[in-house]
């Protein structure tokens, strides 16, 4: 026993009134005794003796995990794995539910023609949510089961206790234990191999008997502060605002530049646009509703590039477009790629896109290209070309995807389709008419 040395230590330390190791003058209540052992092995042996003597309210403190201490202290295996298993299963279920709700119920989303609710595609996400919930449960469950974070403890009043994070192997028995008796318990610990045993008293000041109030205040304050971002998000979701969005990351949204037709006082004419420069030729011809094709060439051949000649839609073909069988085949190939998804391979407007729209309950159909009443048959070639280039109603323009020459090939093929769908017996060569009957 080194009573004299630790007494000296405590007196030096004494900012909390009476020394904790001795019976204080003010009459502080006894909290328990703290024993020190000189090795992990001695601690394990001591803990076993204390357990065998029937004590329950005791704990061990060491700088590192001591193997076998749980068994020596009679601590049961944790139920944390069972809790984690439950959390993992919950994570799987929630992950699947989330994907079902998002992809299949709330907003059905067709990806690559797969069913909107297809388990194989959902496994990776469910796997991640399983791990997420398991890991969070392991982490926080460990804290909760270990009563962490423990920021204050009556033993903190003993200097010896600081050795628990350095080189001390300590065992503390609380006075509230049924078998506790200061003299007999001290004796037991010494017999169990403790190198030092000292009692620990609460501070005589009752206010200092529990965890300091400011710690509760700090926890409450940080919890409230942690709620602030959540509250702001909730408020933003539940309210409307006329203000523009916060630009947290500006990217290139705000650039020092002018868009078309903005005012700019620095130029004499007050416009930001500078207009055409004298002596140069525009790539776009005036007079057309949307004259600019995406490829940047001089396009004086308006019949070829716009389907217009002399202000009228052309009814024939541009000069450089020859109606050959090769071009017709090219037109069919391009048509089958770009047009058939909506208009169908036969041009009757029954492609897979309208079919899907109708399956989902929509009422939209693509234009029948071959029906005389629908207007496309009687449309001039130039207008048909313009429709392919720039779109019409819900159809978008294809000028960025189909080169000019191919667009004329498609015009040619659409004409052939119309001819074939509206054919009479007179169109069939006389010597083959017999085959049709």
């Amino acid at each position, binding site marked *: 026993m080194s009573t004299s040395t630790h007494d000296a230590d405590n007196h030096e330390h004494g900012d909390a009134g009476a020394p904790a190791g001795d019976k204080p003058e003010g009459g502080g209540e006894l909290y328990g005794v703290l024993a020190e052992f000189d090795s*992990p*092995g001695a601690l*394990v042996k001591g803990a076993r003796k204390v357990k065998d003597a029937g004590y329950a309210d005791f704990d061990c403190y060491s700088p590192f995990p*001591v*193997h*076998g201490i*749980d*068994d*020596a202290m009679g601590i049961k*295996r944790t139920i944390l*794995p069972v809790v984690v*298993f439950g959390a993992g299963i919950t994570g799987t279920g929630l992950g699947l539910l989330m994907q079902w709700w998002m992809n299949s119920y709330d907003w059905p989303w067709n990806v*690559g*023609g*797969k069913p909107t609710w297809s388990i*194989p*595609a959902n*496994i*990776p996400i469910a796997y991640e949510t399983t791990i997420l919930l398991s890991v969070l449960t392991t982490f926080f469950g460990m804290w909760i089961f270990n009563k962490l974070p423990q920021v204050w403890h009556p033993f903190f009043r003993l200097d010896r206790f600081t050795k628990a994070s350095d080189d001390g192997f300590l065992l503390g028995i609380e006075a509230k234990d049924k078998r506790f008796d200061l003299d007999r318990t001290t004796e037991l610990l010494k017999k169990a191999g403790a190198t030092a045993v000292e009692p620990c008293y609460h501070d005589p000041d009752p206010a200092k008997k529990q965890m300091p109030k400011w710690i509760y205040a700090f926890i409450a304050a940080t919890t409230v502060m942690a709620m602030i971002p959540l509250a702001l998000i909730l408020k933003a979701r539940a309210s409307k605002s006329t203000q523009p969005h916060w630009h947290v990351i500006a990217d290139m949204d705000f650039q020092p530049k002018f868009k078309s037709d903005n005012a700019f006082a620095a130029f004499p004419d007050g416009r930001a646009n500078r207009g055409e420069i004298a002596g140069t030729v525009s790539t776009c011809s005036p007079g057309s509703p949307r004259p600019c094709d995406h490829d940047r060439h001089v396009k004086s051949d308006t019949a070829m590039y716009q389907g217009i000649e002399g202000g009228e839609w052309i009814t024939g073909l541009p000069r450089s477009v020859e109606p050959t069988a090769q071009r017709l085949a090219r037109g069919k190939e391009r048509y089958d790629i770009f047009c058939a998804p909506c208009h169908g391979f036969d041009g009757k407007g029954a492609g897979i896109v309208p079919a899907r729209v109708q399956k989902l309950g929509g009422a939209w159909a693509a234009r029948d290209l071959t029906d005389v009443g629908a207007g496309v048959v009687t449309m001039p070639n130039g207008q048909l070309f313009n429709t392919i280039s720039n779109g019409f109603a819900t159809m978008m323009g294809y000028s960025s995807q189909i080169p000019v020459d191919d667009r004329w090939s498609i015009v040619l093929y659409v004409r052939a389709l119309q001819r074939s769908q509206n054919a009479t017996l007179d169109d069939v060569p006389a010597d083959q008419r017999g085959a049709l009957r």
Partner: protein
Amino acid sequence: MSAGHKTIHPDEKVKAGNFGSQLAKIALPLGLAAIAAAFLLGPSHTGYRHFQLGYLTAWMFVWSIACGSLFFVMIHHLARARWSTVLRRVAENIALTFPLLGVVGFLGIVLPMLAGNHDLYYWDYAHTQSHEWQHVDHHLAGKLGWLSSGFFAGRFVLYMAIYSFLAYWFAKTSKAQDESGDPKLSEKMRIAAGPGILVFALTTVFVGFDLMMSLAPKWYSTIYSVNLFGGAMIATYAFLAIFTRAVQRTGRIVHSVTVEHYHDLGKLLFGFIFFWAYTAFSQFMLIWYADIPEEVVFYNYRMFGGGDGLSGWANWSIALLLCQWAIPYVLLLSRWTKRILPILMAISVWALVWHWVDLYWNIMPNAAWGVDLETGRNTGPLTGLLEANQPQYVWHSVLIWLGMVGVFLGFVGTRMKGNLLPVKDPMLGPSLAFENY
């Protein structure tokens, strides 16, 4: 409790004695008899094709265990493991079956090919048709340089030579330490294990590609051999647990290998069961999602091929998912199931059976694929072979498998000589004292 070191129990029987020779005397003749019976009794209308497929499945099964044991030895050195020291000699001896296993594989898989039987691998058959092939199937024709019987035989010999060299070197060095007790030998093996495991990994990847994946020569999956390796490790840990227990039943090494070591084998079994399922699903999901015809055939046939019941591959697929992953995974999740040896043994036997089913499921449907020579298209099962490749002949493959396991056990028996523990390994003490906390 916290003692990190023990010496071999004074009553321990460390010597293998006549255990190995007795095992070989029983297992080898029974195994050979079963294989001979299967050779004579197989479904006759397909020639030897069904026998060869079953032989390949059975050989891959025993390869799994020998290859996994070699990995067990090398990863032990590489990680400077302590716990597994008491199991390492057994694993070394199992890996030492390699030259003999190579001979058995060569006789059943490679030799018929060299002797003019082209039934097993479709690319081998394609070589006999090479003139037509150049015109109808560029895809396969481009691969026939790698997939040709001479080159294949050479590679097979090379793979077996690499395995044998690694197995011999590590066993020889380890046994030299039994005599000298020189700790430098441990360091030597640790240094060699690094490059050794690299060579091992490459060899194993190519074994998977050449022997199994090339059954469907136009199909490919880069994770295929990783999955095969995962399955091999399942088989290895299961076999090590069962075999070590069997050795202990004869009164040998009873004090050295404790429930702690079995517990760790169980953990690794658990881990690799998940690894296997993870890689299997990774392979499946990418192929299923991309839905590219040349890739998806593999799963298409396994999900929709065959008939009802035992002959429906979908049933095998689902059974594999449940029995090779879900059931043992849940059973091994808890600590206590791994520590009650009869339970661990039952799960190990179960895992071994289902590893064979995994190989069967990989090999048999692949082998049923054919290509129409006229069109170069995949026709699904080859005409005339369809019936034989249906799982109703599974008994035939099981018979060959049991025979091969007998032969393998015989080989293992011939290798079990001398000490069953690395008696002078510096890590033996910590391994003997090993405890799971």
